[in-house]
């Protein structure tokens, strides 16, 4: 199958999803109204709440959610052939991610731009707020562990990428300061920064930097050395103000992503290469894990990702100018994330065979076992990008460093962000714990003291994923990546549960939200049980005594979420639930026709079945 045909066919399916399914969601499920006064207008403060053009909001939202995860997951999952991975990316993006991202914005817009964690407490139950914190805590711990391994592996394999990576730090600070102090347009400094960064690639090739001598002298492996350096960086960077390093880095990364997507798309269309991997792999080794359920947690970002709900409800919903813009912003951003996953699938099944180091080999030789698939997925993507870039005349070595630089840049920024996020969660959880004890008691003071001490909270935030990254010993991503996928899918499940309850309470039919919710939770629980059996039924003490309890905790969180979602949905369907947030929609309700409110009062039992398909807006009760 020509890669170009897969690219164009998938983009056509995405376009159909946007043209028809997103319209169905907007009209029949979320019941968007152009006249609704959005939080951006109601609370316009010129900083957080600002009515913004929908194209600008889309660009902002997409670059906030796009990262390395939709690249790495599909790079592992093509192990079962390109067909299943692509099918899950297409179906997941169109029916799950689209509804999830779009719905997260819609719910938040209707609730004063509140975040999904607060909404979980408001819409589902107060316990759901704690559940949310715990899930996010495990999610960011996994994120840090897996991305530290990804970056360490890349820097070890591609020492030519070390110099450009190092240069990107002062370059980012300089660009940030320049734009801030000169108050000039940002475009020119951005382009200069990109050119300067790419000019460092040949320098990096001429001066590859490796830690091997240090590793030999100290007796510590190179990978461990890199992981140590990365967590040290994450500790220092996360203590700096966000505007100093994190945001300028993020800013340069987004330009890199645009360049990478263009290079891959043009390389695919120009080269007209054939996909070397089988559509559905039949020679999967007997000891490999089953495609069900593992595929659905291996590809999380790129098919459906809970992380998006944090961005959608955290910042995007505060900038939506008209409620109907939620469709364009949320659904299109999900399609953009799906396109990144598509690029990764094509790079690892077609582009990778164009790479000179792989010529003459069989594709199945690269993905011989499940362990091989999970050992170096980032390397497969880098080789694939190098292959496609070769189609447009970029030298292979340069293209490899270019590909490595993209993943390293994104992953290192994610490390910084995730450590910050975990520190906030630790502080909030310790304050919640302090409230359990009498004010002034030793325990109360201890928890409050822990919450206030930024050095200790950051140290804990760094130490946990560092320990986790060390556990597998072989620094293969496979196991940790699957655990990361389960936490990500649980976050998506929680957001979908919030959306489904909200839709049901508005007397709309939530079935198209409940289906992906049930599917995700079912696959996640199945994968967790599957993994747990594997961790227990092994001779590895680390698996049994560390990963198995971790898996059990995540499994318990999943079961807790199922119970909470079930209770909240049942209440919503029965119509006995308390008002979610009467004040949130007060203004809108006043504008809405009183006959709608009246009809609700006349038919209090008309739950999902009675008025599920009605077109008019409904009051929340």
């Amino acid at each position, binding site marked *: 199958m020509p890669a170009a045909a897969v690219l164009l066919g998938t983009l056509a399916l995405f376009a159909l999803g946007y043209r028809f399914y997103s319209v169905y969601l907007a009209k029949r499920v979320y019941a968007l109204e152009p006249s609704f006064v959005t939080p951006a207008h109601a609370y316009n*403060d*010129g*900083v*957080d709440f*600002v009515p*913004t*053009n929908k*194209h*600008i*909001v889309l*660009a*902002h939202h997409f*670059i*906030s959610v796009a990262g390395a995860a939709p690249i790495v997951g599909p790079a592992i999952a093509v192990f079962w052939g390109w067909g299943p991975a692509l099918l899950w990316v297409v179906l997941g993006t169109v029916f799950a991610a689209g509804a999830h991202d779009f719905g997260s914005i819609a719910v938040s817009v209707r609730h004063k731009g509140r975040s999904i964690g607060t909404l979980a407490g408001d819409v589902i139950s107060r316990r759901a707020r704690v559940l949310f914190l715990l899930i996010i805590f495990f999610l960011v711990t996994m994120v840090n562990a897996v991305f530290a391994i990804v970056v360490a592996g890349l820097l070890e394999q591609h020492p030519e990428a070390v110099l450009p990576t190092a240069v990107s730090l002062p370059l980012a600070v300089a660009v*940030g300061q320049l*734009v*801030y102090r000169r108050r000039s*347009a*940002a*475009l020119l400094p*951005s382009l200069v920064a990109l050119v300067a960064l790419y000019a460092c690639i040949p320098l990096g090739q001429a001066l590859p930097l490796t830690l091997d001598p240090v590793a030999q002298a100290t007796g510590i492996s190179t990978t461990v050395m890199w992981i140590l350096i990365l967590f040290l960086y994450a500790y220092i960077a996360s203590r700096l*103000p*966000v*505007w100093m390093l994190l*945001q*300028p880095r*993020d*800013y340069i990364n987004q330009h890199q992503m645009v360049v990478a997507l263009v290079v891959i798309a043009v390389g695919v269309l120009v080269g007209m290469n054939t996909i070397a991997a089988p559509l559905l792999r039949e020679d999967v080794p007997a000891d490999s894990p089953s495609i069900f359920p593992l595929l659905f947690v291996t590809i999380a970002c790129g098919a459906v990702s809970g992380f998006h709900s944090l961005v959608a409800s955290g910042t995007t919903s505060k*900038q939506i100018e008209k409620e109907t813009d939620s469709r364009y912003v949320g659904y299109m951003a999900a399609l953009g994330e799906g396109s990144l996953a598509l690029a990764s699938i094509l790079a690892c099944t077609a582009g990778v065979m164009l790479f000179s180091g792989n010529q003459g080999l069989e594709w199945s030789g690269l993905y011989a076992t499940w362990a091989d698939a999970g050992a170096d997925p980032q390397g497969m993507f880098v080789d694939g990008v190098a292959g496609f870039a070769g189609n447009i005349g970029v030298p292979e070595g340069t293209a490899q460093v270019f590909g490595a630089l993209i993943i390293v840049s994104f992953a290192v920024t994610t490390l910084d962000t995730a450590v910050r996020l975990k520190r906030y969660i630790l502080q909030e959880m310790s304050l919640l714990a302090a409230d359990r004890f009498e004010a002034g008691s030793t325990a109360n003071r201890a928890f409050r003291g822990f919450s206030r001490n930024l050095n200790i909270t950051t140290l804990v935030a760094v130490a946990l994923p560092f320990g986790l990254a060390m556990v597998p010993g072989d620094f293969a991503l496979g196991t940790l990546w699957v655990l990361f996928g389960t936490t990500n899918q649980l976050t998506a499940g929680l957001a979908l549960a919030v959306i489904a309850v909200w839709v049901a309470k508005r007397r709309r039919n939530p079935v198209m939200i409940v289906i992906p919710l049930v599917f995700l939770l079912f696959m996640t629980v199945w994968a967790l049980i599957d993994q747990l059996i594997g961790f227990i039924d092994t001779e590895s003490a680390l698996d049994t005594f560390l990963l198995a309890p971790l898996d059990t905790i995540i499994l318990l969180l999943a079961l807790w979420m199922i119970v909470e979602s079930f209770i909240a949905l049942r209440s919503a369907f029965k119509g006995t639930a308390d008002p979610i947030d009467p004040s949130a929609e007060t203004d809108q309700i006043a504008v809405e026709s009183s006959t709608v409110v009246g009809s609700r009062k006349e038919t209090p039992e008309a739950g999902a079945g009675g008025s599920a398909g009605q077109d008019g807006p409904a009051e929340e009760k």
Partner: protein
Amino acid sequence: MRAWRRFEDFHQQVFEARWGRARTREARTQQDTLRALLLTETLGVDNPVAYETLDLIPYMVADLHEWHQRMGRDDFGGPGGCC
């Protein structure tokens, strides 16, 4: 040239939406902290350096109303109060 200008304008708006506002938010947070320190006495907390910081208060009252609303207080009465 016109296309370049339009692209530059779009880029600038995205920059402001994502990174520019974050910088403004950081500046506002620092201003809010300073304002809270200056107004601690109106909040019922003793301020040992009130005499030294008194001169600064006129500069901080210009957007007092926005500040106390942002802090979660719909009204801000008392001496030198707002509404």
